[in-house]
């Protein structure tokens, strides 16, 4: 009798772990909007016993009951107050990678597991000053069609100001069911007053790899995100390109905001034949090395990697590993500078807490948090270039592969 009960409990546990794993994979999969570096979860949220509050916390309830009894104005619900309190704690911690996402927004992110989402089709990122910037409107997608441009700052979504929101919160507001509209208030360089743009959302299927042969037998492959499918898509593209025996390969990670840590190791391993991809330093000085996996498809061909300010997190891992090993050279602009690793937790009410659990360093031990990676050859890309359809960074990469300098 006893043993039967145990078996049943064991099964339940496994089931719970599986559900959590699915939820978290979806949360980390940001489909063209995302940033960050995520790990799969290791444990469900601990359940707090009632009455186990630290003594310092007593003033919280004093304050809350004062508000409840005395405040002149509309009171928040207990749920809003609770979420406010969590966000306040995160503010006190002051780590930009650690964030809280309410159940509604966490649920929206779950659609990403399908490899697509419903939104406006733009890559965005949060600047250190708390402003949301359009890194790239995806060609042919609603944002681009409505005239949104690279470098635009988004001030409001519908009527909600988004300054100082987390990236994910801002994204959640921009997204919504296909066919509905969203109104963005845009601040654009050279335009004095902010203006509004109304965009009809549509279903955006994400293909994260794009590849082709350029002139002079040079192969080009671009990776836009490190999602769960990225390694597979990249391998297929490299197989096709390498079959044509190119004289050089350009790997484009511009505006790639990151994704899974494990995927970054797999991607870097396509280009390197040994050594380390990164070193992770966790709590209590715990250090973990991630070696190259071996069996890479493009470990010999001359290599140039394109990067820019939108290359963040997992992109910076790959770029850093290639630069440190001398395997290839980096062309473009300084990268974003995000070197923290987050572990997403699903809380009991479906909200999500992403916690910075580690920092990573390049194989040579370089710190890139807040600094970024500096390319070997710096080439700017101006708005005029963009408007004229020029890509001086790509041109410089081709020139390097043809001339060796």
């Amino acid at each position, binding site marked *: 009798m006893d043993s039967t009960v145990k078996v049943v409990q064991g099964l339940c546990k496994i089931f719970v772990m599986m559900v959590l794993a699915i939820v978290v994979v979806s949360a980390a999969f940001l489909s063209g909007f995302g940033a960050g570096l995520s790990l799969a979860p290791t444990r469900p949220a601990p359940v707090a016993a009632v009455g186990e*509050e630290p003594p310092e916390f007593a003033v919280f309830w*004093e*304050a809350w009951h*004062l508000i409840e009894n005395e405040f*002149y104005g509309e009171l928040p619900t207990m749920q809003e107050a609770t979420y406010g309190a969590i966000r306040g704690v995160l503010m006190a911690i002051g780590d930009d990678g650690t964030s809280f996402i309410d159940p509604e927004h966490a649920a929206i992110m779950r659609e990403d597991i399908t490899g697509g989402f419903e939104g406006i089709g733009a890559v965005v990122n949060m600047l250190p000053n708390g402003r949301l910037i359009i890194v790239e409107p995806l060609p042919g997608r609603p944002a681009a069609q409505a005239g949104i441009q690279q470098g635009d700052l988004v001030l409001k979504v519908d009527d909600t100001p988004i300054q100082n929101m987390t990236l994910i919160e801002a994204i959640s507001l921009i997204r919504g069911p296909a066919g509905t509209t969203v109104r963005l208030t845009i601040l654009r360089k050279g335009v004095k007053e902010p203006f509004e743009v109304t965009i009809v959302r549509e279903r955006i299927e994400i293909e994260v790899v794009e590849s082709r042969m350029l002139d002079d037998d040079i192969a080009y492959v671009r990776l836009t995100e490190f999602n769960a499918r990225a390694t597979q898509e990249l391998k297929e593209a490299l197989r096709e390109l390498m079959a044509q025996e190119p004289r050089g390969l350009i790997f484009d990670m511009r505006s790639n905001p990151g994704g899974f840590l494990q995927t970054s190791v797999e991607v870097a391993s396509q280009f390197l034949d040994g050594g380390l991809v990164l070193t992770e330093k966790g*709590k209590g000085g715990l250090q973990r090395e991630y070696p190259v996996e071996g069996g890479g498809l493009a470990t010999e061909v001359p290599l140039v990697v394109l990067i820019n300010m939108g290359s963040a997190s997992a992109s910076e891992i790959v770029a850093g590993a290639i630069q440190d090993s001398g395997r290839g050279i980096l062309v473009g602009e300084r990268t974003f500078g995000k070197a923290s690793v987050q572990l997403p937790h699903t*809380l009991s009410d479906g909200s999500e807490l992403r916690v910075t659990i580690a920092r990573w360093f390049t194989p040579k031990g370089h710190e890139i948090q807040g600094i970024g990676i500096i390319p070997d050859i710096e080439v700017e890309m101006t708005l005029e270039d963009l408007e004229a359809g020029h890509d001086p960074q790509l041109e410089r990469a081709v020139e390097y592969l043809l001339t060796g300098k």
Partner: protein
Amino acid sequence: MRTLVKISIAVALAFSVMTASYAAGYGTHWWLNKDNNPTTEEGDQFTVFWEAWHILEKDFYGQLPTAQQMTYGAIRGVLTTLDDPYTTFVEPKPRQLEKDDLRGSFGGIGAWVSKREDGAIVLKPMEDKPAQRAGIVEGDVVIKVDDQEITPDMPLEDVILLIRGPVGTVVKLTISRAGYLEPLVFEITREKVDTPTVTWRLLEEGQGLGYISISLFTERTNEELETALKELKAQGATRMILDLRNNSGGLLQTAIDVASQFLSDGVVLYEQRRDQEEKSYPVQGGGEATDIPLVVLVNAGTASASEIVAGAIQDSDRGVLIGENTFGKGSVQLVYDLSDQSSLHVTVAQWFTPNRHEITGNGLTPNIVVPLTEEDRAQGKDPQLDRAIAYFNTNR
């Protein structure tokens, strides 16, 4: 020479009051520590907070703040959901300074305390106060207060609080002074140090024209104002200018006291609380200056308690407002001290002028609008005061 020094001290004082993170709230209320455990329902809904807290404690990479700082963060986070800029949380140390400011006096040594660029804490004694009498000179650097070492990274506010203390107690300062190899030790008995908020004088332009400026509404302001009015009248003042420019407010009771110096009857303000009947605060009677012709100077920095006084004078036609539109803060805060000496300023009411003007977002519009430009300020001109003088001379 002497006048100049006094003025510079007055300026420095104004700064010290402003930088002590003074929030324009009124009224103090002592929060009796009732049963402050969460109800079962609150506790249930709050479960996710503790889930998040424990995850952070377990997994967060980097140094977590103390449980106290995380608690304060949680309180501030809840306050952001109220969407009211005046409901604020004040930590114990700034709260202590704020209390001193509102009291209008504190126990101290009578010296200006400032932080040099290199982080050193430097003293400048006031005339005839304990610090000067004990031998402190300008430029002395504080190394220790009692047995507490002073380090360059210590916030100024912390050092000020160490030096202040109850009247009659002794503080031991260890001082480094230029030209001395060894540190000097001074034992100084703290005295009551006043922070005046009212300045007054008889203006030279125009006959019998008195000028009174109030910078803040503290517990001592009404007493100071009474002295000012009596002295000005004794000196022959027959008309009065009350300057409330850049006065950010203070205590509600003081605003009523101050308004009552100028009004003979009627209402000073109406207050509306949650789930309560409107309450009126009548003029107290027995004012010192209820008949004398009056002009009140206001500007965008005239807020809160100042707007109560200006609004009551304007609505009763007791005087004329000259200057710029006022700030527009029509809410009342109570300050509750929490069990760990931190405090919560809670918006508990909305107030209205006697004619029921809503102040929030509108402010008061002066009867005679006179701007003061950056240029005026740079040239030391004061067209608003000039207009007030002209008003009395021309009667319009």
